[in-house]
């Protein structure tokens, strides 16, 4: 993990006079360099990109679409015709898996990002601005905590028809952020007393800028870990909602519906289950790798190889 990083560093450091003003080594550049320099981060990112390519470009390679039924092949193992085999209904496993992956990747990643961003913003603002802002935001957080998320999602499920996946993502995110936001709030309160925040205040930096420049980066470890966990949580929530027949509605599919169906036939027709499950595991793993590498890139203390 160290070698490529040092090479990059060497390229950048020599301030050769006459080469024009040196590029300012700001935090953004250093973090990007360190992230790309770490092997696991690059690997995780590559895997994620491959997954996205597979999900969106993969269906073009196969003659089957996820709505097609092959009435000549029910529950057949993988073959040249059906690469991943077929389901009981005659649907092509390759086609439906990729279709499900499209939905799950978008839902999982977006819901995680939205919920972590929401948690960070609400928590940081509540912690930084005492008084009515804090009270209002804390009240909203508490209110959402006591609402039965699963029930509300279930009741709203008829709304999530074709084309409203964005609303579904928002609703998922809306019920994921509260606990993190409370942690962020208390950490912000203690951060606010630190001298570097005071220094920024006395310098004349605006409070909102302080939150984005000083508070949130110092909570980045927490937020990144939270976001990676939320990816899995969002995919699993979507999965369990779909399992119970809410969430993504047929004929559309998601990892959740596929795993729910596949688990019934997994024992005697493993291809109906293992391809989906395998892709889910790889996705979550890649997200975790990226998260770890990002956290290390943000955290200046983790430079030294252990």
């Amino acid at each position, binding site marked *: 993990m160290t070698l490529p990083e040092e090479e990059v560093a060497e390229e950048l450091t020599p301030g050769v006079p006459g080469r024009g*003003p040196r590029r*300012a080594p700001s*935090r953004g550049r250093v973090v990007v360099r360190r992230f790309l320099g770490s092997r696991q981060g690059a690997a995780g990112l590559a895997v994620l990109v491959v997954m996205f390519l597979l999900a969106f470009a993969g269906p073009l390679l196969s003659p089957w679409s996820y709505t097609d039924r092959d009435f000549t092949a029910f529950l057949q193992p993988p073959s040249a015709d059906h690469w991943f085999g077929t389901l009981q209904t005659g649907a092509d496993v390759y086609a439906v898996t990729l279709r499900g992956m499209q939905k799950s990747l978008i839902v999982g990643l977006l819901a995680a990002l939205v919920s972590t961003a929401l948690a960070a913003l609400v928590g940081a603002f509540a912690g930084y601005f005492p008084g009515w802002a804090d009270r209002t935001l804390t009240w909203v957080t508490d209110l959402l905590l006591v609402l039965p998320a699963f029930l509300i999602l279930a009741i709203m499920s008829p709304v999530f028809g074709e084309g409203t996946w964005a609303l579904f993502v928002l609703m998922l995110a809306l019920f994921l952020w509260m606990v993190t936001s409370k942690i962020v709030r208390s950490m912000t309160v203690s951060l606010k007393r630190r*001298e*570097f925040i005071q220094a920024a205040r006395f310098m*004349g930096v605006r409070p909102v*800028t302080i939150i984005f420049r000083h508070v949130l980066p110092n909570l*980045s470890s927490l937020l990144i870990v939270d976001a990676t966990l939320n990816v899995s949580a969002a995919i699993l929530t979507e999965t369990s909602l779909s399992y119970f027949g809410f969430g993504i509605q047929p004929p559309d599919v998601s990892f959740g519906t596929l795993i729910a169906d596949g688990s019934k036939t997994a024992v005697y027709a493993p291809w109906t289950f293992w391809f989906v499950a395998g892709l889910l595991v790889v996705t979550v793993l890649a997200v975790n790798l990226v998260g770890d590498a990002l956290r290390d890139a943000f955290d*200046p*203390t983790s430079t030294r190889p252990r």
Partner: protein
Amino acid sequence: MTPATTPETAPAPTPASAPVLDVRDLGVSFGDVPAVRGVSFEVRPGEVLGVVGESGSGKSVTASAIMGLLPSSARVSGSVRLHGRELVGARDKELNALRGRAMSMVFQDPLSALTPVYRVGDQIAEAVRVHQRVTKEQALVKAVSLLDLVGIPHPAERALAFPHEFSGGMRQRAMIAMAIANDPDLVICDEPTTALDVTIQAQVLEVLKKARDETGAAIIMITHDLGVVAGLADRVLVMYAGRPVEVGTVDDVYYRPRMPYTVGLLRSIPRVDRGAQRRLEPIEGSPPSPAALPPGCPFAPRCPLHVAACDEAEPPLFETGPGHLAACIRWEDEAASEAGEEPRSPEETEAAEEPEAAEEAEEAGEAEEAGEAEKAAVPRGEPVLRVEGLVKDYPLLRGAVFKRRVGTVHAVAGIDFTIREGETLGLVGESGCGKTTTLLEILELARPQRGRVVVFGHDTARLGPAERMAIRRDMQVVFQDPLASLDPRMTVHDVVAEPLRTHGLRDTGRRVAELLTLVGLEPAHAERYPQDFSGGQRQRVGIARALALEPRLLVLDEPVSALDVSIQAGVINLLAALKARLGLSYLFVAHDLAVVRHIADRVAVMYLGRIAEIGSVDAIYDAPAHPYTQALLSAIPLPDPARERSRRRILLEGDLPSPADPPSGCRFRTRCPKFRTVLTEDERVLCVEAEPDVLPVGEPAGDQGAACHYAEKLDVVQPRRNSR
């Protein structure tokens, strides 16, 4: 006036007695990293050995190794003999029988060294009962008498108190009482006074001397403060990079140092008895990391006498005189250069410096006297900051749901001062005197609770947002802890560029490089993070950030107190040079009066939220008029053994009263030695009834002002010096 002073007797231990503790070639390593290497010394009964070194030099590890308190991951080699009994490799049971009985330890932080849930008396009694077969009652009686011995008033009542009801100084006394409970032969004190204020430190040091006299125990005094050792120790061991580099009697080490490191340390300490005109000489660079020691002499990279031979092998300890060892191959050169120069005994060095320094001081003093007091004819420059009657209270609240006010903390109770352009005002006082609150009130640029703060001619109560922003540009701050005041998640470039960006500059790269060069760092350092730097370098980054916008007023909150002595000198010199070069004004808040003497033009001494005395540095340090200033100055240990022994110390009794409930009339009267011993009944009435204002003192009435009804100038730093 002679309140509670103890003239120090020059102790000369009889070398005939056998050593209590004999340490031979002690080495400690954690994994592959050596923390302590080749430490050898012996301590005789009643002797005080000072172990001096900067942070990371291995002093505390040595102490822990002697006590057998190292974690099991540490590898200990060599030999430690207590009364001839080998302690290295001894079983824990054996050590337990010795710890507390034959040897005991006083720790730095007295709060964490006492168990919070037991009464102080019970804890001392427990220390007695562990080693002596006595009943509980007898042990408690002994505990009370021990508390009395260490000077805690009403010991029988205080023995029933819990540790949190004790102040820091009282806790440290209780720790000393516990340490001497079983008449040990050896007491190891690990930075016992570092966490305490100077007046309390003076009290605790007196207690230590008394304890030594009572028990006849040998004391190993570990500290980074050369002043503390000068007054207390008989012999000194200087440590550097885990190894002793100079050992000798206190006079040998202070007056005839042979190791360049010791020489450098002594030259780099700011001293309360020497004025600002004398530049400090910092030691270049920073101490090596124990994991990556340089080949040869570990001090070689920083050494002014460095020659090629220094890098070949680590020098052994050479015998440079009777009982005086130094680890330097060039000790003879050092001795010769010293012989060539004026003999460096303190009086004579000063005599040599005297005419020049005094002259300069006089000039400065005259200039100030001419210009001080707003009514004076010749103005000394525009006032950049004026504080008038500033008041700040904090409510004391109780209750979880319905908060009710149960009291008021008067953190700042009406203070006035002015800083003019190009001037440095030192604001000094012990912890809890309100100096940091004052500073924050000024920095907030908001309407104060009462009084006025005028910055660059603008009253902060009537500032619009745009004006406030403009003032923020001209007034910058440097904080105490350089690590805490730099965002750990930002590169140095971003840290230094932040004020530039905030005030609308876009292209920051070039300016940041300039600033880093200005404070003595390299522009290439810009892409590192703050934690990649040493303490002194971090503080330089903090100063670079404060200077980014070319401010006119710099507010410094204890900027050097978190740094080691050798590094501190460099930062002080940097601040002085920047001031001269950029024409800055400083508000310098500190508790260390010696540092203030070096950097400030004028000084204001605070006590319990009020200014006790204010005036030009030379006036205040040479002839303080307020009893508190006198006590404060006399409490500061000088790194000069002969003078330290002959000094008479004004010891203050008790602790700082709570700012929630200050005494009536003069706030200082409860601890005032003058009030207690000099004044008559009739004179005291005024102190109890009327709060004194800061009034000019001296003839002719000049710059100096003291808030005392009976102010009287008195030279307390040193008798017979500065005979103007």
